[in-house]
């Protein structure tokens, strides 16, 4: 397993380089213009000059090479400098966003806390509640609990988050009287800092709706896979054997069946974790959480190639990494799975 992991990690480097090239080409070829959202009152010749100042006059391969150089040389040097107060990166231009004219990594660093907090929390809560729901739904198949869970998760998944989000805002921010203790803010305050109990309550309140929306969506998805996989395993011979041996239901269920049912669930969770980092575009927008998802959307709409490329590349790293973790976990969950 160790050699497998090392081999896959080494293989990840060319894979990621290739992915970055494909993303770059995709952004190049896709229609769009970083100056599309500028007012029409700016004449075309001025726009052309701006385009040149953004470095768009240089040929494609030069721009890609520069981005790679910046990513692997300038940025690490800069971080080194920032950490140890050295000056190796002086005079070197970092990866600059077209939209903000600021280093993209600064913006990303600014965005990560709220994204991890809100989206991560939603993901965590959703996953944690989905597992027991899935297990109980399968164990008591077609009970009222299962039926109710199925109904809620299907509605939760089929109604898009932009509808559930707005619906919650209408109920808890608009219709709820402002002085009620159940009133929740419709706009997330990213400058808010938790210092005492009152500010913690405020943070809790402003996170409540986005976390709920995300958790519902996530739980709907994972609990379906959990349930299906448990059902598959509950009818297997080894379960009968275990029961015949006189093992308690608890042990049968949680030790034998659950372990064998986790493979698809692990896959789904591993696929979901990287998306926590790119944020939840729609939910972030509905509640103005302004995390990485909102930034990515703005950058894509604004055709801000350096920002989109960098965020997508980080996302690609996480995808490759977590899919590798999933593969390793398969081997642990089911030792018969071998890659070598």
């Amino acid at each position: 397993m160790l050699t497998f992991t090392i081999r896959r990690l080494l293989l990840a480097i060319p894979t990621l380089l290739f992915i970055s090239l494909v993303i770059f080409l995709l952004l190049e070829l896709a229609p769009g213009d970083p100056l599309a959202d500028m007012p029409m009152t700016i004449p075309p010749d001025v726009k052309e000059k701006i385009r040149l100042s953004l470095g768009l006059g240089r040929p494609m391969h030069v721009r890609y090479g520069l981005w790679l150089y910046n990513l692997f040389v300038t940025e690490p040097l800069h971080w080194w400098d920032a950490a140890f107060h050295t000056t190796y990166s002086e005079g070197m231009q970092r990866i600059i966003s077209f939209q903000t004219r600021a280093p993209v990594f600064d913006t990303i660093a600014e965005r990560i806390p709220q994204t991890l907090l809100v989206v991560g929390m939603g993901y965590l809560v959703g996953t944690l509640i989905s597992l027991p729901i899935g297990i109980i739904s399968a164990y008591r198949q077609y009970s009222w609990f299962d039926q109710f869970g199925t109904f809620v998760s299907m509605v939760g998944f089929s109604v898009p988050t932009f509808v559930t989000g707005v619906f919650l805002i209408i109920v808890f921010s608009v219709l709820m009287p402002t002085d009620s203790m159940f009133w929740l803010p419709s706009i997330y305050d990213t400058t808010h800092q938790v210092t005492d109990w009152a500010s913690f309550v405020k943070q809790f309140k402003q996170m409540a709706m986005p976390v709920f929306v995300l958790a519902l969506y996530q739980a709907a998805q994972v609990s379906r896979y959990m349930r299906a996989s448990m059902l598959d395993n509950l009818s297997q011979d080894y379960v009968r054997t275990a029961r015949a041996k006189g093992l308690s239901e608890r042990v049968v269920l949680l030790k034998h069946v659950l372990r064998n049912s986790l493979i698809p669930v692990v896959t789904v969770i591993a696929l979901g974790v990287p998306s926590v980092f790119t944020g939840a575009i729609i939910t972030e927008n509905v509640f103005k959480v302004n995390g990485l998802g909102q930034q990515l959307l703005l950058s894509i709409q604004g055709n801000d190639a350096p920002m989109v490329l960098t965020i997508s590349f980080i996302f690609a790293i996480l995808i490759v990494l977590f899919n590798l973790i999933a593969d390793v976990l398969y081997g642990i969950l089911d030792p018969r799975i071998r890659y070598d």
Partner: protein
Amino acid sequence: MTDHTIDLKAAKPRNQWWDVWDQFRTHRGALIGMVIFAVIVLGTLLGPFFWDVDPKFINIRARELGPSLAHPLGTDQLGRDMLARVLAGGRITIAVGMTAMLLSLVLGTLVGVLAGYFRRLDGILMRLTDLFLALPLLPLLLLMVMLFREPLVLSFGPEGGIFILIVFAIGVTSWMHAARIVRGDVLALKEREFVLASRSIGTPARRMILRHILPNVMSPIMVSATLGVANAVITESALSFLGLGFPPDFPTWGRLLNDGLPYINLSPERVIWPALALSALVLSINYIGDGLRDALDPRIRGR
């Protein structure tokens, strides 16, 4: 998968598919699901014959009306009849949702099974999956429109061409989850005793996959199918935002949801009806999937 089942049933009567059908019939949830699904499909297909109001007709004097006899679901901001729009939207939504889901499922299952079963293909196919997962969706879709919209519209007509484009766009960008999930299950399955046993008697790979592997990964595939329909419908509405979708006056459930959203405070029914229709569709597919999965499982069958 449903098509597959029916085809075989018609071609070879009195084979194991009859057993499947018998088992399926005893599944109450599946039957109810079938009925609801049939009602939705027939409703959207035949509905316009009974409710022959033009969904695109604007009556500016009948704007934003509540439910009434003339307009059972009210009217929208341009005075278009909502019932007619929900019915007309349903046809295209269901068609897009089902076809795109089938395409992504077939692609995902194919990649998943090949990668899981043949070790040589695993590396390359999974790296391809990683690549597709990492691609930013919006630019990819925009690029597809730019490259394919005009040729497709020219060769298949505006509606046919755009239908193909949308189904293709959704299918090509949403197969990766199914692929990873199926592969994970196949990896575990192919080390099971019955597979080893079957292989030891020299069963060829093709039959191994069709006979032993596929039936055993049915349940995650069914879940993917259910979730896939909802996903496809929502993606379609996002596409129409990008200008990739059907012409803007063409109602689909996703677009009705989008259009109704600003009015949620004034007339919540404009959001509620399409959302309800969508949920009912997804729920019915879910129950059909449930029943089908049970019916296909020989261990449950006959119990």
